[in-house]
C-alpha cells in the first residue's frame, strides 16, 4: 500500500537533474509531497504562500520563459485558480503542470470541504489541458515524469490515502493517453481511475462467484481519452461500467458516455458520487456511504450486462 501523492513527490526528485524543472507550493508542500524537492532544491522551489491564483500565473510566467513548472495544492484549492488555469495557462498553451492532491471523498475525515468531487470535470473542459488520475504511487511517479516532456499543460489528481500498488514490475505499460488492462475478462469492462481501480479489481473478484468474467481497465488519463481501447472493450465485452471517486457528472463516466453515445452505443452504468457532497469519515467508510465501493461496482456490472440485447 502506498499513496499516489508520494509517487508525485518522488517524481519531482527524479526530475530534479533537469534544471528547467521548478516547483511551486501554496503552503501544502508537506501534504502534496513537493516538500522533498524543496528540501533538496530550495533555489528552484517557489513558495507562494496561501495564494493559489498567484501560484498558477507565476508558474505560467516561468513556463513562458522556458522553465517546466510543477505546482501543487489540494485538488479542491486548484479550483480557486480555475480561471487562472483557463485564461493564463490553457489559452496560451503554457506547459504548467498542476497537481491536486487529496482528491475525492476518499480523502476522508477532513470532511466535504476538502473532498473535491468536481476537479476532473472542470479541468477536462479546458482545451489543451491533459487530465490524469493515476491509481497507485508507481504509475503516478512515471506519469508525472512523462509530463516533463509534454508541450501542453496538465492537471493531475492524486489521493491522500494509501491504495494497493498495481504496477510493480509493470512499469513499462504506463504511458500518458493509454489505458491499461489490469485484468482481462469477457462479459463486461469496468473502466476505472484512481482509488476506484483497486475497488474494481475487488468487484471483478466478487463477480466470479456470479459466473461473470470482468475486464478491469485503469484509465489513468481522462483526457485525451483512450477511445481506441474503449471501442475495443465495447465490441469485445458489450457492456461497460465506469468507476470513479468523483461526481457522476462530467468526470470519467461523463467522458466515456460522450464517446460511446456518439460512436458505438453500448450499455453503460456509471458508478460515481451521486451529485451530493461528502462528510467526515474514514476513507473506506466514505466509499460505502457514497455507494461507490466494490459491491456497488459489481451490482452496476450486472445491471450493464442485463441491458445487453
Amino acid at each position, binding site marked *: 500500500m502506498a499513496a499516489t501523492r508520494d509517487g508525485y513527490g518522488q517524481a519531482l526528485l527524479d526530475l530534479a537533474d533537469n534544471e528547467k524543472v*521548478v516547483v511551486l507550493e501554496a503552503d501544502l508542500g508537506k501534504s502534496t509531497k513537493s516538500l522533498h524537492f524543496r528540501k533538496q532544491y530550495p*533555489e*528552484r522551489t*517557489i*513558495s*507562494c*504562500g496561501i*495564494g493559489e*491564483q*498567484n*501560484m*498558477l*500565473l*507565476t*508558474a*505560467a*510566467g*516561468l*513556463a*513562458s*520563459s*522556458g*522553465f517546466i*513548472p510543477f505546482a501543487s495544492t489540494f485538488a479542491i484549492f486548484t479550483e480557486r485558480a480555475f*480561471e*487562472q488555469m483557463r*485564461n*493564463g495557462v490553457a*489559452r*496560451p*498553451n503554457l506547459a504548467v503542470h498542476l497537481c491536486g492532491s487529496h482528491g475525492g471523498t476518499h480523502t476522508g475525515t477532513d470532511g466535504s470541504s476538502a473532498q473535491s468531487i468536481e476537479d476532473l470535470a472542470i479541468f477536462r473542459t479546458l482545451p489543451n489541458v491533459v487530465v490524469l488520475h493515476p491509481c497507485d504511487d508507481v504509475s503516478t511517479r512515471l506519469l508525472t515524469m512523462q509530463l516533463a516532456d509534454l508541450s501542453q499543460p496538465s492537471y493531475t489528481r492524486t489521493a491522500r490515502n494509501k491504495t494497493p500498488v498495481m504496477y510493480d514490475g509493470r512499469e513499462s505499460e504506463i504511458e500518458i493517453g493509454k489505458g491499461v488492462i489490469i485484468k482481462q475478462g469477457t462479459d463486461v469492462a469496468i473502466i476505472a481511475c484512481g482509488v476506484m481501480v483497486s475497488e474494481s479489481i475487488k468487484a471483478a473478484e466478487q463477480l466470479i462467484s456470479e459466473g461473470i468474467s470482468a475486464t478491469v481497465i485503469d484509465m489513468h488519463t481522462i483526457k485525451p481519452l483512450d477511445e481506441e481501447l474503449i471501442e475495443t472493450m465495447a465490441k469485445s465485452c458489450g457492456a461497460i461500467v465506469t468507476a470513479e471517486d468523483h461526481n457522476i457528472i462530467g468526470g470519467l463516466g461523463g467522458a466515456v458516455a460522450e464517446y460511446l453515445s456518439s460512436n458505438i452505443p453500448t450499455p453503460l452504468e456509471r458508478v460515481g458520487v451521486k451529485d451530493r457532497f461528502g462528510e467526515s469519515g474514514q476513507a473506506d467508510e466514505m466509499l460505502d456511504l457514497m455507494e461507490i465501493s466494490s459491491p456497488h461496482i459489481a451490482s452496476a456490472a450486472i445491471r450493464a450486462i442485463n441491458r445487453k440485447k
Partner: protein
Amino acid sequence: MSMSSTELQELARKCRVEIVKMVYRAQAGHPGGSLSEIDLIAALYANYLRVKPDSPDWEDRDRFILSKGHASPGMYAILAEMGFISKQDLESYRVLGGVCQGHVDMKWCPGVDFSAGSLGMGLSFGMGCAISGRLKNSERQIFVMLGDGEIQEGSIWEAAMAAKHHELGNLKVILDRNRIQNDDFCETQMRMFDIPAKWQAFGWSVKEINGHDMEEVVEGLDFLKNTNDNPAILIAHTVKGKGVSYMEDNPSFHGAAPNDEQFAIAMAELGEVVN
C-alpha cells in the same frame, strides 16, 4: 539613441491617432484606457525596453506585460511604431484571423508577452518572468502595466505580497491611475483610499507622477529602471481618454467607439489630416 521629450510627445500623438482609428474602424474596443496609458507605453518602448522587433522572442529581452489587456489599441499602436507589426496589421484589430485580437494575446501578436483579457493576472505572470530572469542570472527587467480599477482584484495583492517576499527587484509596475473603470468612476465602484500607502505597506518602492507630462514620465521610468533592489511601482496620474475632448474623464468611452462626427472631431484635435 533615446528620444527627447518632444519626440516622445510626437510618438505618443501618432499612437493616439492610431488608437482612435482602430476603435472607429472596429466600432468597438477600449479607447479611454488606451489614451490614458499611451504616453507611458510610448516612452517605455522608445527609451527603455531592451527588445528586438526583428527577433520578438529573443530570450533575454525585457518583458512588457499589459495586464489591463482591453487597452490593447495602445499597445498595438506602439508595436507598429516600433516595427513588431505593420501599420496594416492595425486594420486587423478585432477582425477574424487578425493579429490584433480584442485583448492582447501572445499567441497571435509578435511582441506580446502575455495573453491578457482577464484582469488581475498580469502581475503574477510578471512575477514568474522575474523569477525566471533571476534563475538565469539575466539582467532582464519585467514591466507590468496595471489599471487602477484592476487592483480591486484580490489576486493583485497576492502577487504584491509574494513579489516582496521573493525580493523581486527586477519586477516593475506602472499603474495607470485614470480614475475610471467600466461602469463608472472608481470611487463609485470601490473606494480606493491611499493607493501609494497600500503598496508601501506591501514593501514596494513607490513614486507618483503626472502620466501625461513627458518629463515626469521619463523621471518615473528612470526610477523604475534604476530601482533594482526592491519591487517598484510608478503610480501615474492620468486622464482617461486623454487627447480627445469628449472622451476625457468620460466613463462612456471606457469601451465605446466614436461615430463619424466624433471621429472627425478626434482627428482634428489630434492634429491628423484625414482625406
